[in-house]
């Protein structure tokens, strides 16, 4: 057991608690964007792909696998954040009402 490993385990456990705490505050209305957004966040594995290809020593197999991992990770990150943004853009409240002429009869 190296101290680095212990530090990593500490970080993992604390981050999991922060995760539970923060996520439990998200209303059900936003659960699909939440899932899509966290989905984009785990695209962070692309960091591992970049290091595997460009920073760590390795043979051509490692480079090949790493390149595919970079492709996959980029799809995950780019697609995930964009589609989440598309969804959240649509969530609008009542006040900036999208229907211009329908105002007078509307109740609060």
């Amino acid at each position, binding site marked *: 057991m190296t101290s680095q490993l212990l530090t990593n385990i500490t970080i993992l456990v604390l*981050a*999991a608690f922060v995760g539970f705490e923060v996520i439990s505050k998200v209303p059900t*209305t936003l659960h699909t*964007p939440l899932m899509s957004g966290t*989905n984009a966040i785990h695209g962070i594995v692309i960091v591992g792909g970049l290091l595997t*290809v460009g920073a760590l020593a390795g043979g051509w197999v*490692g480079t090949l696998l790493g390149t595919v991992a970079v492709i996959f990770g980029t799809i995950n990150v780019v697609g995930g954040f964009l*589609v989440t943004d598309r969804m*959240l853009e649509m969530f609008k409240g009542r006040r900036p009402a999208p229907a211009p002429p329908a105002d007078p009869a509307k109740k609060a």
Partner: protein
Amino acid sequence: MSVWITLAYLLAAVCFILGLRFLSSPKTARRGNVIAAVGMGIALLATAVQVTHNWEFVVLGVVVGSVVGVAGARMVKMTAIPQMVALFNGVGGGAAALISTADYLNSAGGQGPGVLIPVVFSAVVGSISFAGSMVAFGKLQEWMTGQPITYPGQQVVNGVIAVGIIGIAIFLMATSSVPPLFIAMVALGLILGVAFVLPIGGADMPVVISLLNAFTGLAAAATGFVLDNTVLIVAGALVGASGTLLTLLMSKAMGRSIANVLFSAFGSAPAGGAAVAMGAEGGTVRSGSADDVAVLLAYARSVVIVPGYGLAVAQAQHAVRELADLLEKRGVEVKYAIHPVAGRMPGHMNVLLAEANVPYEQLYEMERINPELERTDVALVVGANDTTNPAAKDTPSSPIYGMPIIEVDKSANVVVLKRSMAAGFAGVDNPLYFNPKTTMLFGDAKKSLNDLVNAVKNV
């Protein structure tokens, strides 16, 4: 140098947490997503400065991935979001598995258990997540049947595969490098991913996607252990927590245990129990015309609309909003009741209604709307079935007994828009349709709604 990189990773992790924090309200949610994306950008920059060689492969990977990602995110229809999320989730898991495999092959397995355990874990969980997500995608995209695919002894076979994986994993940790065996383990992980999702029906996909989301998060965290990278650990843990929480929430919303959802091949057999209970009721189905229903709606004081996946399939979210606007103009109070598992993933129905510009204040969760239904004049059920089935409350023999429902049978009148008398995804009959208070309006949801809009205009 290294200090700055570590600090940049810390900043990225903080951005992820803040981003999720902002998701707690629809007002700030979009900003939250941007903050998380900025965090991702910071992490990627901090990584890019560490790249020393193979730039052509890095650029190739990023360009190809960006093109695919942008195209996918731009073109996907809102009804197809669940399979898109499954796909993005799958490639994330696949990336984690590939990185671990590359690391194992590069280092020839010559590392201590502190690295070897997370390498093995990330490779197995990542490959399960990849293959499982692809099957989930296939089911949701209807490239394959949404029905559970079962055969005798299935769970035993899956159990054997799982035991095989664990056996190889232990062997790999105990011995020196055996690359072929590592590859075999990853292959078994892929097979298990497929085999594990096959027997799960389309209606249970919300739970599966949440679970696989958690899997990918954990695989990413394990990759962080392999590379000694804190931002991977933090991000992975956040996603793992979120996926776990949503999985628990979803199975609770279906009134079943997670084990029941994952292993019981729910909805495969037509349920005999509920059919018997229905026969006893022996009621008749009353079907009405659009004009009848329009009068009912136009002179009501309060209407609660209960949308289900049928509404999404018929692309009728805009038509339903038009009808609601028309009723509101007449002074009818309109609310939408959203069951937690309406649609194909948690909160999917909210996204679809948001797309049709329904203000989110009008969307009511099940717990909030149920007490109000007693005072509601008309409950308008559009393409929802199992989530309104009173058998879940009062027929212990029903397969969906115990599932919390939107109690539309409490309101004064019920109108059900439905294509035919076919059973819902759970394959269970719905006594609601035989209730004397219920009027059925058969036909495609979009057409029926358009008919209703015209009829209400003429009332």
